[in-house]
């Protein structure tokens, strides 16, 4: 039974409900699109996960599972589903939540939300089918003059346009909320983080359109091949910036989960918001580090965009890396967990998968992802590490150990609060973030150290079997590749556990309508 009183905000009768757990208003139109986008996100995660285990077992030389053509096909499938579809579908779900529930306003346009969702879904399906047909073995970057079937580019363009419409719907919600004064003073912090993510998404998607539309026309034979350097500049405008959407959404998720799990409140709103502003202004510029070994752009451009502007975005991450745990510490000490320096952390709710996923995400992102990212973004180091496994070692710590793990933690609250279904097998839920977190740390460390031995990324056979001259890598590199393989198996088991638990909860979970969700 849902509360009958009209929730606070500008909702019309029958358009919203009050959440029985948090007391927040939930726009019913937005709720539908949160569900649809979240389901598509999990489907994309499953496709990407199947790709992940196949790739992990191929890059592990002792197993070397896939043949060469399928390796590059699955690499394309894995990259696009994990880095684009899973993340952006869930990001759009987060925007609908932040734009309506947190701003206490109705969804701006249901028609726009349907158009956005259908374009994204059709685009994702078209791209995946084209990849599986074997006509787009170009990997996620699809660097021109490497050419895929036109449907690959068309699918990506449809997905990008759909996502842009979803972002536009969020901005329309912000406009309505400000017009109707549904919130007092500054925007709530989590909504502000979502706004930062939405701004970054605009930049990313515009770059994607500029890069991919001419490439699509080229694949149709309507124009000449785009210049390779120009394409790389524009493509990384979406390729890396789409990962910055993740960073903002992930940090917002940290603040949200800190509140939901231990009742934490940001210590200083101004400091936290300033860090989000640093993201908005400078994080996109960091895309330049992908072009640090490109000859077409000047040294001045590289140095300014990476060694100066990028550090301002790094500063923002370091601020969040202190403010989020500090908020948790204060909340825990207020509850009486104040023994010694770290008594608050020891007594944290580690059995709550929302908390463990969020805190592990923070540690993996900050320590492994952050440190490797800053070093790889330095020109002198990049020139050594570029195109080695050190690069995926870095971004598996940020995007997978950071963002994906945080989003999994979020799902442990989204399903009971939005789908109003409870998770079953609670002991398995509690174990899942650790299984996935430990697995992905092993993947990241294995890749990073193997890359330090010079093992290349995106390479089917680093042993060069059948080559006229013997070429291989040190036994230390093989130990690291084995570590990566073991980590991939562990992470896959953790990921599959998450997907099975979530799908079961969404379709078969016990309903909790009319009462608060069962506490973790």
């Amino acid at each position, binding site marked *: 039974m849902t509360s009958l009183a009209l929730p606070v905000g500008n909702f019309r009768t029958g358009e919203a409900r009050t959440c029985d757990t948090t007391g927040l208003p939930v726009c019913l139109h937005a709720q539908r699109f949160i569900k649809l986008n979240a389901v598509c996100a999990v489907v994309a995660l499953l496709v990407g996960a199947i790709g992940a285990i196949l790739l992990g077992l191929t890059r592990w030389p002792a197993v070397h599972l896939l043949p060469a053509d399928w390796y590059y096909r699955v690499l394309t499938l894995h990259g696009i589903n994990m880095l684009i579809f899973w993340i952006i579908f869930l990001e759009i779900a987060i925007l609908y939540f932040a734009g309506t529930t947190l701003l206490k306003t109705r969804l701006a346009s249901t028609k726009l939300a349907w158009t956005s969702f259908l374009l994204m879904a059709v685009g994702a399906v078209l791209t995946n089918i084209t990849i599986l047909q074997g006509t787009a073995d170009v990997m996620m970057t699809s660097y021109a003059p490497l050419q895929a079937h036109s449907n690959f580019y068309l699918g990506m363009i449809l997905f990008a346009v759909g996502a842009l419409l979803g972002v536009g719907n969020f901005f329309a919600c912000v406009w309505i909320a400000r017009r109707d004064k549904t919130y007092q003073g500054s925007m709530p912090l989590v909504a502000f983080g979502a706004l930062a993510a939405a701004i970054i998404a605009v930049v990313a998607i515009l*770059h994607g359109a500029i890069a991919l539309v001419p490439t699509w026309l080229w694949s149709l034979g309507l124009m000449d091949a785009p210049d390779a350097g120009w394409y790389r500049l524009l493509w990384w405008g979406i390729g890396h910036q789409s990962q910055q959407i993740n960073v903002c959404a992930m940090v917002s998720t940290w603040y949200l989960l800190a509140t939901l799990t231990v009742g934490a409140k940001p210590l200083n709103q101004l400091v936290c918001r300033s860090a989000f*502003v640093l993201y908005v202004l400078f994080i996109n*510029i960091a895309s330049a580090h992908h072009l640090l070994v490109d000859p077409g752009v000047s040294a001045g451009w590289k140095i300014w965009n990476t060694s100066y502007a990028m550090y301002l975005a790094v500063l923002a991450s370091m601020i969040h890396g202190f403010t989020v745990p500090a908020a948790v510490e204060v909340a825990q000490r207020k509850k009486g967990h104040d023994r010694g320096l770290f008594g608050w952390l020891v007594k944290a709710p580690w059995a709550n998968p929302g908390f463990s996923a969020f805190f592990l995400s923070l540690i993996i992102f900050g320590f492994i992802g952050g440190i490797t990212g800053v070093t790889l973004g330095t020109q002198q180091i990049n020139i050594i590490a570029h195109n080695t496994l050190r690069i995926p070692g870095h971004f598996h710590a940020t995007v997978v150990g950071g963002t994906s793990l945080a989003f999994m933690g979020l799902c442990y609250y989204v399903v009971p609060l939005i789908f109003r279904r409870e998770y079953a097998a609670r002991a398995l839920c509690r174990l899942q973030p650790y299984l996935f977190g430990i697995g992905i740390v092993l993947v990241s460390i294995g890749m990073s150290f193997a890359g330090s031995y010079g093992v290349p990324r995106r390479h089917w056979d680093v042993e060069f079997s059948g080559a006229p001259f013997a070429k291989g890598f040190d036994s230390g590199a093989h130990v690291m590749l084995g570590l990566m393989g073991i980590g991939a198996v562990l992470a896959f088991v953790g990921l599959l556990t998450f997907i099975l638990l979530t799908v079961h909860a969404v379709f078969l979970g016990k309903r909790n309508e009319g009462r608060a969700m069962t506490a973790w």
Partner: protein
Amino acid sequence: MHDPQRPVPPLQRLMDNPWLLLLLGVAIPFLSYTAWGWISMMTMAKATLP
């Protein structure tokens, strides 16, 4: 609590204006990364054959 008599600091005004943030968030990366990158590529001298 914010005193309504005191002027709102400029940084606070920026953070409370999503449209200004959107404008700056699009303009700064476009100028620093995209436009400068394009100019850099277009003005690069052609390599001479050995």
